[in-house]
């Protein structure tokens, strides 16, 4: 039995790394992605360099994305999920469900005419984000007049490439593959669950992810409430990590918080930045030097806040326990950033059930001891943060590792 096809589920950075290595090793790869675009979270992050690179690795992402898109042996299926599987190691048959593609990403040339002519408000046709790959428009089913049964055909008539098809049906297809890599990634902890910190209630309480996206889009930081430059900023560590229900360290938050803190200080030297923490995770290549620099300009306070309240002025009053000063304390900030951690994908249980792979104590997919890519099912491997928190570099390395294991399986079968 010879099958030189591999399936990678999830086109985030580790799935992309896996797909590239599999394809470079000579295999044909199906890379399927639940969302409409590939790249995952990392694609929406921002560079955190000041006048020098601070090694956040975000710049590695766009190039890998471009490489995967143009690789001749990789087929990408977006808007797709796995719904069933049969067969075994070396010869899996995987059922893939693809949502209706009202606008075909293969035919859309992103000219934007459809969005221009769309008569609804807000538009039913959404323009892609600047970093989106594939770079194509998408249709909001709930807004579209045609899909609501009305007789509107404006976008389809005007589309120069006939990319729009209202009759598009969800597609089920069966892929025959020798090996599978699961790279479904993580979800960001929903900070609303820690209600006392006021996320989504107060405009000036943001998460680390919000900050990534703000810097990516705007290039600098403004207060959401009034557009002014914040002067007193607090970072709160371990939001959604290292507690009873998330008994692990998310590995990335201390580093991104410190990098952001330095970036904010770089852009606005007068800003006062405080980081509230339990334990600082400062190990890692080159980070020691960076941490020493941070100590000079950033205030570190041991202890995390219990509550954040908004004063009538819009300022945020934070109640925290400063362990060093042995007493409860209050302080006022313009902006509070919650350093949210990584949690398992909500639908990972469904995928685990379909594939027959185990879920570990923390809710991430379970790997074998001493080999974090191997699952309980032969021929199915794990890559990246679906197995547990990792930063971008570790995710890439993990993706490469999974690819290596999967290649072994297929070469052995040959």
């Amino acid at each position, binding site marked *: 039995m010879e099958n030189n096809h591999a399936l990678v589920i999830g086109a985030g950075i580790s799935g992309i790394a896996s797909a590239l290595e599999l394809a470079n090793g000579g295999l044909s790869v199906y890379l399927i992605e639940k969302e409409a675009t590939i790249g995952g979270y990392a694609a929406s*992050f921002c*560079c955190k*360099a000041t006048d*020098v*690179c601070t090694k956040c690795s975000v*710049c590695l992402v766009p190039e890998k994305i471009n490489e995967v898109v143009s690789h001749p042996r990789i087929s990408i299926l977006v808007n797709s999920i796995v719904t069933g599987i049969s067969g075994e190691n070396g010869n899996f048959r995987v059922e893939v469900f693809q949502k209706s593609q009202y606008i075909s990403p293969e035919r859309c040339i992103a000219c934007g005419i459809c969005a221009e002519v769309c008569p609804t408000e807000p538009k039913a046709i959404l323009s892609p984000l*600047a*970093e989106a790959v594939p770079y194509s428009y998408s249709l909001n089913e709930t807004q579209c007049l045609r899909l609501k049964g009305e007789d509107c055909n404006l976008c389809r008539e005007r589309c120069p490439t006939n990319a729009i098809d209202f009759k598009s049906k969800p597609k089920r297809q069966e892929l025959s593959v020798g090996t599978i890599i699961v790279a479904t990634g993580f979800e960001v902890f929903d900070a609303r669950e820690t209600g006392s910190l006021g996320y989504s209630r107060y405009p000036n309480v943001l998460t680390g992810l919000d900050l990534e996206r703000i*810097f990516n889009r705007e290039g*600098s930081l403004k207060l959401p409430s009034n557009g002014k430059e914040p002067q007193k900023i607090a970072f709160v560590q371990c939001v959604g990590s290292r507690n009873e229900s998330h008994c692990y360290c998310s590995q990335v938050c201390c580093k991104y918080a410190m990098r952001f803190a330095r970036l904010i200080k770089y852009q606005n030297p007068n800003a006062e930045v405080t980081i509230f923490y339990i334990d600082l995770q400062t190990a890692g290549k080159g980070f020691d030097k960076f941490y020493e620099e941070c100590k000079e300009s950033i205030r570190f306070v041991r202890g995390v806040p219990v509550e954040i309240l908004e004063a009538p002025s819009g300022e945020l009053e934070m109640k925290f326990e400063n362990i060093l000063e042995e007493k409860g304390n209050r302080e006022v900030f313009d902006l509070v950033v919650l350093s949210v951690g990584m949690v398992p994908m909500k639908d990972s249980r469904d995928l685990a059930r379909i594939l027959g792979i185990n879920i570990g104590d923390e809710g991430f997919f379970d790997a074998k001891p001493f080999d974090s890519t191997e699952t309980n099912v032969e021929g199915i491997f794990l890559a990246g943060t679906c197995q547990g928190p990792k930063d971008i570099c570790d995710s890439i390395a993990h993706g490469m590792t999974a690819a290596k294991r999967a290649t072994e399986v297929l070469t052995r079968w040959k």
Partner: protein
Amino acid sequence: MSREDNKIVAFCCQHSAYQVANKAGRMRLHYPDNVRIIRVPCAGRVDVQHILKAFEKGVVGVLVMGCQEGACQHLTGNTRAKKRVKYTEDLLKEVGIDGGRVKMVNLAPDMAQRFVGEIKEMAEKIEGR
């Protein structure tokens, strides 16, 4: 040759600045249209002669746009470019073209605003020359 129009040449590293320029376009961040982007494999490929030649052709501002310091795929490409830009500035001063009209800019692939800002700044500088 028309010397009236104030052209700017931006040598853009394909790993960073060239992508940023595309991102700026996608975000419809408008910037002066007198800039001409030349794609290079690394800022370290840009040579003194290229910059001088541009000025010879009547270009009035040159930007060399590479990756962030410490993030060059070829380790020294952007720092070498920076030195070369500095040297070219001196050469241009010798011929009476003031130094500010060549500039090294370090960018990451997502810094569309910075990119547009730098171009606007150069455009303003050459307006007021």
